[in-house]
């Protein structure tokens, strides 16, 4: 499994542009504007975070072929609320995709307790995960997936020019009519997910996340 990573140079430029004035033609402007095709102007909440030099998460929508930078709006215990320039949101629970807002995918919330224990514990095993989606009629539908989690061994990855020693964990899930594979690169010492590719749902498909070191 390979990750379709965004162009590194662009990302580096994007990082350097962080905290500076926002211009549409800046690198960060371009990369975040690409996040959603019809991206309007930045929402004020995002601008506030940008000025406060909030932590950055690189996110790619694999099927849509777009990517960009999200900023941390709130860290609340295990939950991190990452805001996109046009007000979309991705919520990660200890690095695992928990829910989305405003991105055209109705992932309301998830129960990730079992896969989190295995992935962060660097253990193989079976687990259940629950996703609750909003359907087209705004009804919340909970789906259960049965997942096999496998320890794939240590991997040294390049995190924006910096080599990092990680362990690759693979999670293969299926329900009656859906199947997907998530992969996580976990730093063993801190038990944090620094790089991942995770399936959000049928509408937007897999999402890649990459922690940007401060």
């Amino acid at each position, binding site marked *: 499994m390979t990750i379709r990573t965004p162009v590194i140079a662009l990302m580096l430029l994007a990082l350097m542009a962080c905290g500076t004035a926002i211009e549409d033609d800046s690198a960060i402007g371009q990369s975040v504007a690409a996040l959603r095709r019809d991206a309007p102007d930045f929402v004020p909440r995002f601008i506030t975070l940008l000025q406060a030099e909030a932590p950055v998460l690189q996110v790619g929508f694999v099927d849509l072929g777009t990517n960009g930078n999200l900023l941390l709006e709130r860290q609340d215990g295990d939950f991190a609320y990452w805001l996109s320039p*046009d*007000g979309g949101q991705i919520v990660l629970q200890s690095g695992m995709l928990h*829910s989305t807002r405003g991105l*055209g995918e*109705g992932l309301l919330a998830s129960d990730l307790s079992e896969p989190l224990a295995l992935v962060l514990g660097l253990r193989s095993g079976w687990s259940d995960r629950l996703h609750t*989606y909003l359907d087209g009629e*705004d009804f*919340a539908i909970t789906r259960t997936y049965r997942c096999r989690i496998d320890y794939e061994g240590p991997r040294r990855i390049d995190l924006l020019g910096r080599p990092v020693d990680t362990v690759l964990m693979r999670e293969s899930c299926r329900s009656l009519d859906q199947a997907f594979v998530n992969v996580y690169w976990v730093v063993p010492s801190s038990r944090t997910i620094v790089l991942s590719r995770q399936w959000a749902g049928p509408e937007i498909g897999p999402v890649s996340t990459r922690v940007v070191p401060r």
Partner: protein
Amino acid sequence: MAAGCEAVHVRAPMPEIVRDRAKCLRIGVVWLAGMMWVLAGMAQPQTLSTYGTPGLVDMPTARVLEDGAVALTTNRYGNTVRNSATFQVLPRVYGTFRYSIIRDFDAPRDRFDRSFDLHFQIADETPGRPALALGLRDFGGTGVLSSEYLVATRTVGDRLTGTIGLGWGRLAQRGAFRNPLAVVADGFEDRPNTGAGGISTTGQLDFGAWFQGPAALFAGFEFQATDRLSLQLEYSSDAYDAETSRGLIDIDSPINVGLNFTYPSGSSLRAFVIGGTEVGLQYSHVFNPKRRRSPGGLDEAPLPIPDRRAAIQADMDLSDRAALMSARETLQRLLADEGITLEAFRVDGPRATVRIQNDRYDVEAQAIGRTARVMASTLPGNIDAFVIIPQVFGVPNSAVTLQRDDMRALQTDYDGAWRLLARSRIGDAPVMGRADEVPGLYPKFSYGLAPYTAFSFFDPDEPVRLDAGAELALSFAPMPGLSFDAVLRRPIISTIDDATRQSDSVLPRVRSNAVLYAQQSDFEINRLTAEYMFKSGENLFGRVTGGYLENMFAGLSGELLWYPIDSRLALGAEINYARQRDFDMLLGLQDYDVITGHASAYYEFGNGFVGQLDAGRYLAGDWGATFGLDREFNNGFRIGGYFTLTDVSFDDFGEGSFDKGIRFTVPLSWLTGKPSRVGYSQVIQPVLRDGGARLSVPNRLYGVTRDYRAQNLSNGWGRVFR
């Protein structure tokens, strides 16, 4: 119906979602175009017959559409044009409305025919038995297409489906034999000549003819060559007797063939040959209102709910007046970002109460959730409970009580929405004064300039006529509940003006002079009213409206609605004095006046079905009742129909025999994925005449109050954490 059917008009499209009085956007044309475009991902291709229903070429199959799906079809062959709209009302029942034109049928004139079909699937297909269905075509119309069928369809292998059926009426014109039902009763032997009654009987249900007279067999199969391409071949029992006898079509063979290509968008193109010689073309589009463009929505993410110690004003003491004012200002500002107006704020110990007006979210539970998030992000740590009272036109509706700790704990729970609902309380809002009102809220003034469209359908000279122009809406509200409103229109394009057919009604011409209104008006005062809305007690709402109430009538209207907060049932009563307006649609009045009014019952059956019964006196002074049934999808898309029976005889009513119509509402959010309270509504009446006509008062209470009653709030509760 003879070809001389007269111009008929659609009621001026009153937007049903006119919660914001000044914001009467009518961009109907754009939306209708949008409907055709929207919605990728329609599932299996479904071949539609020339009748616009699941079928082969002319013959029906026992198939149905996906539950809730809508199919729009237009085709042309020989002298015939058929435009059909089919709605899968229930998983096993679909209904169709069709407008057909047969050139020179009543030579030298054309036949314009409106017809309704109903199809019941008795059994769906299983490995052991075929799908079985019973259908009525043109069951209430003029009888040109009138027929009934019993049909079975079965899949053979992966690509082939076979269909065999028994037809009556038009579907028994070839190879007819004695009606097998005659074994049951002799009355089935002969079919009354249903088409003979002409105008006087049109619109009546031809119960007497259903499944009567000779029967005939039809059969056919469909071969699915690829996912997109299919071929139909049928032996037809419809010989086009009426058309061939008039020399309008050549039928050389009982075999019809068709070739259908379906696009992934849900559109289909089809070519077909009827009777071996007549080549036809057909376009259809199938979509399902259940699917919106973007299921989760594209709205800006909500504020995360913080720990109460991390709230903006975590340490403030709201018993201090300055702190209270500061908290109110912060709430006001953050709510404004969410499209919500803070109208009142009050703190009683650990309980904070806000009264709000939601201007943005079409799903009302989302507005409640957003308000609670703002309160949780703002208010001091000692506040435990939030009471949120949504107001419409300044009138408090319901009171939703949420616990701060529940909001926070459940915001990331996978079943958070429903668990929160179980811990919340939705009650009726108390009757409240203006004590805690946000200063500077009144007077409110708003205005909006927008395009409008008004349609007239089914005039034989021009089946679709249109008025389009600019509309200025003005609203001035000096205090809660009271407002003065004006809707002014200036048509820029009008083809309704060009209509030449005059009313022949023997009743007071309360609606049938629509063309005169269009012709004699230019700048138009569509509405000019003073309106007062109030809550007069527990679960009881009231309204008084006076002035130029609608385009054809001025007067005074009073209404009371009893709507228990957690009830499926609401009961209302309305009484009006109405006087006809001058055709120039300015301030003048004509002599005709009437006392009209209705007692109404509204009931939510569940699964999105809403029924309405209005009994009383109509504009022409006739007494009777209107029965309405709508299927309302939880995303706000609505499709329904109604009919009205009054003491006006079918003869006096004229063409159509009684008033009936179909109606739909398309919410803007369904098309765009962004929250909005704007929607487009249209009523389509096959015939617009004077019997059973109801005064069109703006802001009837059921529509105004329903959104925030418990039933509707809990239906939308899935979005409370969006």
